[in-house]
């Protein structure tokens, strides 16, 4: 029993994400107003993205942008090739320093894969929201209301 309590306390984050998802799902099912349903859909989508991104978190890791790298190496090599003669010894020493510094440990950076997938999900989510709102505008034009029970009554007549 004690380790079950221990297990629950370490998973508390995931449980709060599930509570958010269920709030969104409940709004999509049981609210009457169409705009509230759309807000529920958006809450559901962002809660799922939160769940997904939290899988890629690592302890004591930094953001997935490599630091102290980039164009420094190519610029440095170009400058050293220009001053070839006198800097021969200096070149060898700094190259050794470069290769020692070049080792990138995978445990130092957050997992970039969930970030990439959720970037796509956010943009597709806003496109879907736009289409849903266009449909809501058309429904309001046709029936004069955006409450679901009144629309159902008008359709039945």
């Amino acid at each position, binding site marked *: 029993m004690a380790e079950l309590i221990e297990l629950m306390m370490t998973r508390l*984050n995931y449980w709060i994400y599930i509570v958010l998802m269920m709030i969104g799902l409940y709004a999509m099912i049981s609210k*009457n107003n169409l*705009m509230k349903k759309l807000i529920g859909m958006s809450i559901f989508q962002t809660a799922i993205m939160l769940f997904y991104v939290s899988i890629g978190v690592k302890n004591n890791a930094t953001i997935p942008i490599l630091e102290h790298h980039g164009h420094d190496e190519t610029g440095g090599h170009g400058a050293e090739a220009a001053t070839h003669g006198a800097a021969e010894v200096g070149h060898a020493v700094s190259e050794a320093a470069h290769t020692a510094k070049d080792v990138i440990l995978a445990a130092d950076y957050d997992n970039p894969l969930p970030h990439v997938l959720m970037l796509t999900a956010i943009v597709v989510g*806003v496109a879907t929201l736009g289409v849903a709102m266009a449909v809501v*505008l058309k429904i309001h034009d046709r029936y004069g209301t955006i409450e679901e029970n009144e629309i159902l009554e008008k359709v039945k007549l």
Partner: protein
Amino acid sequence: MIWQFDLLILILLVLTAIVSLKVRDLLSAAMIFGVYSFLMCLLWAEMGAVDVAFTEAAVGAGLSTVFMIATIHRTTRRSRD
């Protein structure tokens, strides 16, 4: 990953989600949804997902809220639910 900060933002997230679905004035619901998007962006920036936080700040708190307000302007503002 400071867990106190995390827990505080998560509690605020749940509160804003519930309040945004409970108010009857749709314009207030859209604005509180904008607050929800901003809190989500903060949470992702604190988790280390900076690209996702940037996109959510631009798209969720910027464009999504504006689309909702544009739609609410053209349909009714009060909801009966």
